[in-house]
């Protein structure tokens, strides 16, 4: 069976309007050969989980610069769990203070990417992680 392109949902939870980074990342992942479902700003945890479910994505990528990750991330993770999407790779970026990173990783985010990260590094990280997950599933 041929491997399908990696499918990634890129969403901005909450009321944060900084969408430049999310758009940059969406485009970079497209250029890295991935299918990116871009849902834009003002996404509730429920909307994000629903889109991830219907679109059957490999990756959920969240972009947040407002500081509301402390409140929103746990709710998003809970919604994904509720829909039995424990298998998706979680990554995020934007303004996540260093002090928060351990907690964010603890929640299940495999990668946290702050300002200035090269988008090639992000694509490479996702590719490697998804390959690993797919490999584990096939085994």
């Amino acid at each position, binding site marked *: *069976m041929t491997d399908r*392109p990696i499918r990634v949902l890129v969403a901005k939870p909450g009321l944060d309007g900084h969408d430049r980074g999310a758009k940059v990342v969406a485009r970079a992942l*497209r250029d890295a050969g991935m*299918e990116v*479902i*871009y849902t834009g700003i003002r996404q509730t945890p429920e909307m994000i989980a629903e889109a991830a479910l*219907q679109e*059957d994505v490999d990756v959920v990528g969240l972009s947040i610069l407002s500081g509301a990750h402390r409140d929103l991330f746990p709710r998003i993770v809970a919604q994904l769990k509720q829909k039995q999407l424990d298998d998706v790779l979680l990554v995020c970026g934007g303004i996540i203070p260093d002090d928060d990173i351990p907690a964010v990783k603890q929640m299940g985010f495999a990668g946290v990417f702050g300002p200035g990260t090269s988008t090639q590094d992000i694509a490479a990280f996702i590719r490697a992680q998804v390959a690993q997950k797919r490999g584990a599933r096939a085994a």
Partner: protein
Amino acid sequence: MNSDAIAQLRAGNPRAVARAISAMERGGASAREIVTAIFRYTGRAHIVGVTGAPGTGKSTLVNEIAKHYRRRGQRVGIVAVDPTSPFSGGAILGDRLRMQDLSGDDGVFIRSMATRGAFGGLAAATSDAVKVLDAAGFEIVLVETVGAGQNEVEIARNAHTTIVVEAPGMGDDIQAIKAGIMEIADLLIVNKADRDEVSATVAALEMNLNLKPKAENDWRPPVLKTIATTGEGVADAVEWIGKHRAYLEANHLLEVRERARCRAELELIVQRELMARLLRGVNGAKIEMLVEQIAAREVDVYAAAERLIG
């Protein structure tokens, strides 16, 4: 997919539906198994195609049309197709962005699809994704094509009712549309009717329709105006979808269209399958050799093809 998963799919379980569509996109044996299992439950949905030039408001309109059917209690499946980049093989699927009003409603299922190299405005697996939604009990299936020009007319073969969306002020594009996708329209919608030049666009489309000789019982596509961003005119459009369905039924055209669709799909699958079998049988080196010979003008393309097949 086991029989349990098929039962869940039939019950409209979103995870089962999502997985089945992914299997369709992947193709191969598991896709075939699913089609075999669900095929007899298909053929119930009314399939509505929505096509038109990029940015005319197709997604926004699909969002509004779906809301109308939901108010009537009908379940709506949506397949939205966007182009795959020929350079990277990736895609940005942005149609869903305009369909946010539909979130949180179990009676709606939205799936974004990349063309993955297919021509004609749809993905190779679009019609199979429609089958999945049909079998899952979605009564209306809306299919949004990629932003279409003149050649993206594949949708007409897949839908019962085809809507071509126009927007005012596209100027010369109307000319282009005449030749191409206008011919496949069952409904013509001039969206963005809040803009100037609406009446000019409507008049141009009407004039174009008048050029076509009208046979008895012939369907004349209505030219409708909508403002998708406010929902204005959409009730009327939905009304016309119903009228078109009734027209097809009254004139036994549903059967005719269905047969044409079945034939086209059968031919396509045979083509794909024969091609796959053929390519499995020959080694790549032989093809490369022929390519070299064609390029060097030692063999003409027809003769080369003959050597591959024969």
